[in-house]
């Protein structure tokens, strides 16, 4: 009898530990919300403020979704934020006649609204194709090839506008950004729909499961008949495609874009994914956790805004908390 109780207690303890490890990041988020609500004297959890947080994190969130795909196959895409900015520049400058008259030095012609969106999104996907092929065919480390791609793309974005920022994109973008449904801006819905689609794709589709298999052990995946190279390239294409969509959301949210914007976006994107427990060595991580990581970081930024912390100090504190969160995640997940 006592042995049984003992075993039961042991199992319960092990289950509890497992539960804790599986949901570490969710628990951290909940603890953070309670903490933030107390520190901000309730302002943090007001409906209006939560809508603001969701609005602010939609761009980073979509970028984080794409980064998750690439990280699952043990890669990294350092060019995805530049892809977003380049896409926003193409849509902003190519889709507005008014803006076109301002860009005297730019090389991008007026394309019209819909063609410019199509060019931007298709272009983003093609960039992903190049990134993926560089990694798969030439076996250049993803870290280096996407970094070089990022450099080249920022040069290209500069050339397109002659270096000047875009302040007069087509009115469609700010109208889209301002549109609301049930109190939430449309960009939040785009993020939510994409997150659901990605989560469904990764857990329910063949290719999604192949992505996990490749990240876990590429050689074994290859021997099991998985087209490793094709699926890896696909991950980069999806990531870049989402980068293009993030560019659209960026333009809709801010109503303007400069070829140099997006410097801080990259760190936030990678931090969101990694805080969410997606492993850099591949094969581990879920969309849910990447989204939770995004929410956690956006919430942190928002709390510091409420507490009137200066923006630069915010960067420093964010860096520190990112490290602490990842360390906690690693400690709770001995396997990773």
């Amino acid at each position, binding site marked *: 009898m006592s042995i049984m109780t003992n075993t039961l207690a042991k199992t319960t303890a092990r289950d509890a530990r497992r539960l804790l490890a599986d949901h570490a990041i969710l628990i951290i988020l909940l603890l953070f919300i309670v903490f933030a609500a107390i520190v901000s004297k309730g302002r943090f959890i007001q409906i209006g403020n939560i809508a603001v947080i969701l609005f602010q994190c939609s761009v980073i969130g979509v970028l984080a979704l794409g980064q998750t795909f690439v990280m699952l196959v043990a890669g990294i895409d350092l060019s995805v934020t530049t892809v977003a900015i380049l896409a926003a520049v193409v849509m902003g400058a190519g889709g507005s006649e008014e803006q076109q008259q301002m860009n005297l030095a730019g090389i991008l012609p007026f394309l019209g609204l819909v063609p410019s969106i199509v060019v931007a999104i298709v272009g983003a996907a093609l960039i992903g194709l190049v990134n993926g092929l560089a990694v798969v065919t030439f076996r*250049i*480390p993803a870290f280096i090839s996407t970094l070089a*791609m990022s*450099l080249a793309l920022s*040069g290209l974005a500069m050339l397109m506008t002659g270096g000047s920022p875009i302040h007069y994109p087509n009115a469609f973008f700010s109208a889209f950004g301002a549109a609301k449904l049930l109190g939430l801006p449309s960009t939040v819905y785009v993020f939510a729909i994409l997150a659901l689609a990605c989560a469904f794709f990764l857990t329910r589709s063949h290719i999604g499961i192949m992505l996990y298999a490749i990240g876990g052990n590429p050689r074994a995946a290859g021997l099991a008949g998985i087209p490793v190279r094709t699926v890896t390239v696909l991950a980069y294409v999806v990531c870049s495609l989402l980068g293009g969509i993030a560019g659209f959301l960026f333009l809709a949210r801010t109503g303007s874009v400069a070829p140099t914007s997006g410097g801080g976006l990259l760190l936030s994107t990678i931090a969101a994914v990694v805080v969410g427990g997606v492993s850099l060595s591949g094969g581990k991580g879920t969309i849910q956790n990447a989204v939770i990581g995004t929410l956690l970081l956006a919430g942190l930024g928002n709390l510091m805004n409420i507490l009137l912390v200066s923006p*630069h100090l915010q960067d*420093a504190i*964010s860096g520190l908390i990112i*490290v602490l969160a990842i360390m906690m995640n*690693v400690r709770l997940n001995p396997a990773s």
Partner: protein
Amino acid sequence: MTQSKSTADAAKNDSTGAITRLKALFAGNDVFLILIAFVVLAAIASPSFLTAANLSNLLTQSALLGILSVGQFLVVVIGGFDLSVAAVMALSSLVFAKTIGYGFAPAAMLAIAAGAGCGIFNGLVVTWGRVQPLIATLAMMGIARGLALTISERSVLVSAPLIADLRDMGGFLSVPTVIWFIIVAIAAVLLASTRQALHVFAIGGNETTSRLAGVAVEKVKLGVFATSGLLSGIAGVVLVIRSNSGVPLGGSGWELDTIAAIAIGGTNLFGGEGKLLRAMAGVLIYQLIANVMNLMAVDPYYQNIVRAAVIICAVGLSILRLRSASRRAILGR
């Protein structure tokens, strides 16, 4: 007939021997040969390149990147990346510029200590916290840059006469260049003669094996990250000497330039392999390309694209070289 055949054989042997020798020469010193080739090309492309003033300027420009690259080299050899080198340099330059009122030496010590502190933090996060170096140093990049900008959003002008003297001192070799050379000399001697240096390469080659062989992996890693931070701290002081001010946005993007430069210098980006002097030749090649593009007044936007192409070619070539080397090793040749 036989005689002529043997002569032909001998000639063939001789020519293959020459090719092998040539190959060995290239394999051993290709970076230096490329550097010389670039110098010749640059001299042809721009008449103002081979002037003493421009060459001196090129060395001074390379000094900061060079000092940071020494630290980056150590971290890459041990199998990591240090993305915080440039941000820590900026932080240290501000600490130095803000405290120089207390005297040159105390301020310099404080600035270098700040750099070393960031390095030790990186090392602890990587060893004790078990966070991947890429992420740990990426976070440190945000921390250091944020702190630097919190200290001051704008550059802090330093009016100490000693700094002005140091800046104007030296003829062809400026003070930053001399400091860079001294650091490289010390690092090269230590790398060639100490047990710890051997451990650095061993860990980069195979961490598990090194641990099993009794290498204190965690301690060596901590030491390498601390050294990288220390060197970034020194670079911060040199930055103030060179530009007469503490610059919070100084060296943005350089973390990647250091990696590209040492990759051009033949350092294996997967760890375990590399030669410091060749890495430094890589720094010179990288700066030389930027220098020539400036002399030829290339549009800065195109410069970015050219830099990207250079990085890809350098890394691609180094990977091809590694692949053929490992193939040779497997085939026993």
